[in-house]
Structures are given as structure tokens and as C-alpha cells.
């Protein structure tokens, strides 16, 4: 309860700050409030994680399993398989993918200095997907020694390369002297997406039956195929990207003032930009490789957080990771419940929830900003 009352008080103070100017009132720091949101989001994430572990079509009960663990009674084989091999990796993969999508959204929006830049919308996801399809269909052509070296990681690495290339192309096309044209960015994203789609189509033609099954499954955009090996493959890439993004937090703040001013403030702008592109590619690539195309997390989460706690990247990145993970787990739970025992692809759930928010952002911006 106290959290909520203080939350309300803080937002109110922010909004009323204009009326508050003569009072010499104590300066309320949005950063302090955002740090409280860290805790709040972490609690939410933990709760959602428990619900996610507890829910599923088999009727296996998390509680009875927990009681058994506490009383040191052995678990049944079914409980062991369902909880340890199905729900737990799915939970962890969901947390990783949700955090990766939200963080790559924040970093990309900071890089492009624009709240509409989302890897899924502007073709980076499609590029990463193309990389993954390349790996699935043409993976057999990779020399054996390389195959042995990277093993299962071929698909995520290919997705990373695809995402990296498309981010670079997108940035080159839509940014002139540090200013991004929203229109060019969105149109270039459409072009990139169309190109990736066309090439993917050709590759699908060339695929054999087994590969087609892999592709269909992957293309649905779902956490249903979660395994421990996927967690082990995507985990390091996503962890690196999220930790790396924390090193960019001050730079991304400065970049909001434009490239020239950022460099006057002592920020190494070139390094900041290439670092951001690598992080977006790694996070998006890894997420796409293990879960297909899940949209809108990268745009909705940062936007809501900017409204609630401000655009300061010092706190935005961590909050986005936590809230992104929570939101994706929530969407996953819905996707499992709504037509149980069958499952809806999670991409459909995030689109139904996210697309209206995206339209709302567009409406709010309309007329304020020249595209």
C-alpha cells in the first residue's frame, strides 16, 4: 500500500511541478522514485514467475511438489519432468527473452533518439530472423570444424549477424549528421523486412521436410520449445548484452542532446554508437533465435516506463529488463491458459496487447513532431 501512495504522490509532484516553482520546495528526484520501481518490478516479476511455474495443462501442482521438497519426499517422475524439464526452462527463457526485447528497445530508441524505434518494427527482428533461417536451411553447408566449434549456437550466432547487419544498414540509411528521420527509419524498416521476407521465402523453398518443421515451429514465435540447451545458448549472449547496456547508460542520456553536444560532454560518441548497435543485435538476435518474432515488448515497456519514471537511462534499463520479463511471462501465461489445453502463439498475445499501445503513442505524438 505504501508503495502505491508514494507512487501517486511522486507522479503528482512531477505533473504539478510547474505550480510548485515558487515554494522553494524540496526537489523531488525522479531517480529515487525509479529506484523504488526497481524493487516494485522485481516483486512483480517474482510473483509472475511463481504463477508461471504453477500453471500448465497437466494439473501438476507446484505447491504439492514444494511440500514434497520441504518434507524431503521424492518427487514423482511426472512432477520432475513437468517442473524441471518443461516449466523451469520455459520460465527462464521467458525472463531472458522479455528482458532482452525490452532492453534492446531502450537502447535502440536511445541510439535513434526516437521512442518509435523498436527492433521488431524496423526490420532488425526480420534481419535476425533471416539469419536464423539461413542457419536452419543452409546449416549443413557449414564446414564441419566450425560446426563442432559452435555446435548448437549456430542459429543464435547467425541471428545475431543478421540483426547486426540490418541495424547498421538502418542507421546508415535513416540518420544524417546525427539526426534520425522517423519516416525514413520506418520506411527503411519496411523495406528491410520485405527483403528479409523475400529471401526467407526463397530459402523455405529450398528446405527439406525436417527443416520445414523446424522453420514452422520457430516462426510461430513461442516459448513452447523451451529447453535447457536453448537457455544455455541464448543466455550468455543476452546476459552480455544487458550488462553491456548498463555501461552505455550515461552516454545514452547525453545522446538525447544530439551527437555534437554529447561529444562536448566528454562522451565517446562513436564507441557509444557501435556499442549500442552490437547490443541491439545481440539481444534481438538471441531472442529471435530461441523464440521467433515476438513483437511490441520493445516499444511498449520503455514507453510506459518513460511515462512513469522518466527517460533517465540510469534507471530505465534495469526497469525495462524487469518489466519486459514480467510482461512476457504474463503474455506466456495467457497464451497457455486462454485456449487450454492448446496454446496460442505468444506473438499473437503481445500483438493484441501491444498494437493498441503503439497506436496510442502515435496519436499522442501526432502534430507534435514533424515526421
Amino acid at each position: 500500500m505504501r508503495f502505491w501512495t508514494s507512487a501517486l504522490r511522486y507522479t503528482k509532484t512531477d505533473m504539478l511541478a510547474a505550480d510548485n516553482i515558487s515554494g522553494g520546495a524540496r526537489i523531488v528526484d525522479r531517480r529515487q522514485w525509479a529506484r523504488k520501481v526497481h524493487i516494485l518490478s522485481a516483486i512483480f516479476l517474482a510473483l509472475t514467475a511463481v504463477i508461471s511455474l504453477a500453471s500448465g495443462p497437466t494439473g501438476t501442482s507446484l505447491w504439492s511438489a514444494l511440500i514434497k521438497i520441504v518434507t524431503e519426499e521424492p518427487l514423482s517422475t511426472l512432477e520432475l519432468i513437468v517442473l524441471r524439464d518443461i516449466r523451469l526452462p520455459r520460465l527462464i527463457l521467458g525472463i531472458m527473452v522479455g528482458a532482452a526485447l525490452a532492453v534492446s528497445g531502450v537502447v535502440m530508441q536511445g541510439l535513434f533518439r526516437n521512442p518509435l524505434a523498436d527492433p521488431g518494427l524496423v526490420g532488425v527482428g526480420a534481419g535476425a530472423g533471416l539469419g536464423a533461417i539461413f542457419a536452419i536451411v543452409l546449416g549443413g553447408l557449414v564446414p564441419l570444424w566450425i560446426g563442432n566449434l559452435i555446435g548448437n549456437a549456430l542459429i543464435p550466432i547467425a541471428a545475431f549477424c543478421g540483426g547486426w547487419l540490418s541495424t547498421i544498414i538502418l542507421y546508415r540509411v535513416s540518420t544524417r549528421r546525427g539526426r534520425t528521420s522517423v519516416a525514413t527509419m520506418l520506411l527503411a524498416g519496411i523495406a528491410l523486412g520485405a527483403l528479409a521476407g523475400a529471401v526467407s521465402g526463397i530459402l523455405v523453398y529450398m528446405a527439406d521436410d525436417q527443416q520445414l518443421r523446424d522453420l514452422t515451429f520457430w516462426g510461430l514465435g513461442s516459448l513452447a520449445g523451451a529447453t535447457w540447451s536453448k537457455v544455455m545458448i541464448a543466455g550468455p549472449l543476452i546476459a552480455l548484452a544487458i550488462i553491456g547496456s548498463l555501461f552505455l547508460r550515461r552516454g545514452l542520456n547525453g545522446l538525447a542532446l544530439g551527437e555534437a553536444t554529447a561529444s562536448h560532454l566528454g562522451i565517446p560518441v562513436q564507441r557509444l554508437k557501435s556499442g549500442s548497435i552490437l547490443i541491439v543485435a545481440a539481444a534481438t538476435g538471441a531472442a529471435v533465435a530461441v523464440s521467433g518474432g515476438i513483437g511490441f515488448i520493445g516499444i511498449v515497456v520503455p514507453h510506459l516506463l518513460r511515462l512513469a519514471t522518466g527517460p533517465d537511462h540510469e534507471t530505465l534499463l534495469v526497469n525495462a529488463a524487469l518489466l519486459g520479463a514480467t510482461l512476457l511471462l504474463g503474455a506466456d501465461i495467457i497464451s497457455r491458459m486462454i485456449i487450454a489445453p492448446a496454446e496460442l502463439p505468444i506473438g499473437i498475445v503481445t500483438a493484441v496487447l501491444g498494437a493498441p499501445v503503439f497506436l496510442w503513442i502515435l496519436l499522442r505524438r501526432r502534430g507534435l513532431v514533424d515526421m
Partner: protein
Amino acid sequence: MIKAQSIAVKIGGKPILHGVNFQAKAGEVTVVVGPNGSGKTTLLRAITDEVAWNGHIQINDRDIHDYKSWELAAVRGVLPQTATLAFPFTVIEVVRMGLLSGIHSTTDTLAEQALARVGLAGYALRFFQELSGGEQQRAHLARVLCQVWEPVVDGVPRWLLLDEPVASLDIGHQLLIMDCLQNFAARGGGVIAVMHDLNLTAMIADAVTIISGGQAIASGAVEDVFTDQSLSTAYHCQLRSNTLPPKHSAFILPQTASLA
């Protein structure tokens, strides 16, 4: 001391500056004047290394290429002619960005002090994008002041490089900012400001340089530089320089054909 020798700048193959010599001393306010498009901003952007330039530039007797980017951030703050802001930051958050380079010992109240200095005390929690043009300009100036808050550190002067800092301010705030700049120089720092108001310049400048057609056509003390001839040549119109009795400060009167 900031020293720029034979600075030549070409943009897109077109020569903009033709071997400009310019210098500014710490402890002084140095003003750059000149007509629109004469190259004032370009000169400032050469000194801040934003455009490709030929020649020699030294800051505090050290070649500009020998500085790392954070070292430059530690000795000079830059106010561009126009600045943009993405995302809804509050005023205080923007001002605190001046502290990003992290070279300050006590930063707690610096941003608030800087805001008060430019007459924006109480604006801390307003959204930057909702301020008026002049208020935004002063908030940016507060950010730059924050960056080089102490005019001298370990005996080394720091610099304010300002492109038209008072362009959209009312007269009261123009004087407030001028006072701020003079105060910074009086305490040992250096100020280079591009200005359009010749009378304001005459009032506060310790040294002035006229840029015209990509060249420095005159530089030195105000009374030496602001002659009828140099001003009229630079601005392509009739200007007459006079002095007011009390403190002998110069003032410039335009002479239109109809008034003559």
C-alpha cells in the same frame, strides 16, 4: 589562452573560413561578431573540433589533438547555436547532464545553483520541452555552466564557448547572462561568445573579433575594433560608433539613408 592560427574550413568543397587567426585570453570575455553567414559558428565549431579544419588550435598552450575527449570536456563547455532534446527530460535532468563527464567532487547542489544563476530557480522539475525558447536557452547555459563550474582548476583556466547565448533572451535576462559571463572571466576563466548585439558587446567585451566573409577583419580592444569603417565594411551598411560620457562606453548607431 585559446589560440587558433590560420584556420581554414571547407564544407562540401566550399571554402567557409580562409585562414582565420583568433585568440582569446583567460580572464577575459572575448566576443566574436559579424554578419549572418560570415563564419562565426564555423569558427567556433572548428575550435570544438566538430568540423574538419586545417591550421593550429591550442587550448591552454596544448595542441587540441593532444586532448582526450573527456579531458576536453573537463576544460571547456560548449553552448551550440541550436540544441535539441529527445525524450521528456526535466530541466534539472538536462542540467545534470553537464556533470556526465564525472570530474566534479561535490555535485549535489551544483545543478540547482547553476539554474539559479541563469534565473531559472524553481524550474527544476518542469519538463524541458515545455519551456519557452528563451528559457530552454538559459537551461542549456546552466548545463554548460555546470560542466565547468569552477573557472580555474589546479591553476588551469576553463572555458565557456557560447554561440549566440542571448539570441532569444529579453533585455533583463541578457544582462543577467552577461553578468554571469563577466563573473566567470573575473574569477580567471575564459569566455568566447558569438554575439549580434553590438552595444551589449561594447559594454562587456574585453576583446572583440569581427568575422566577415570567412576572414577575421579586425580584432583587439572594443574601442580599436569598433570603428565606423570596420563596422560599416563588415555589415555592409552605415554604422557610426560613439562614446557615452560617463564611463566612455561605446555605442553604435545605425545611419539609414532617410535619417541622414
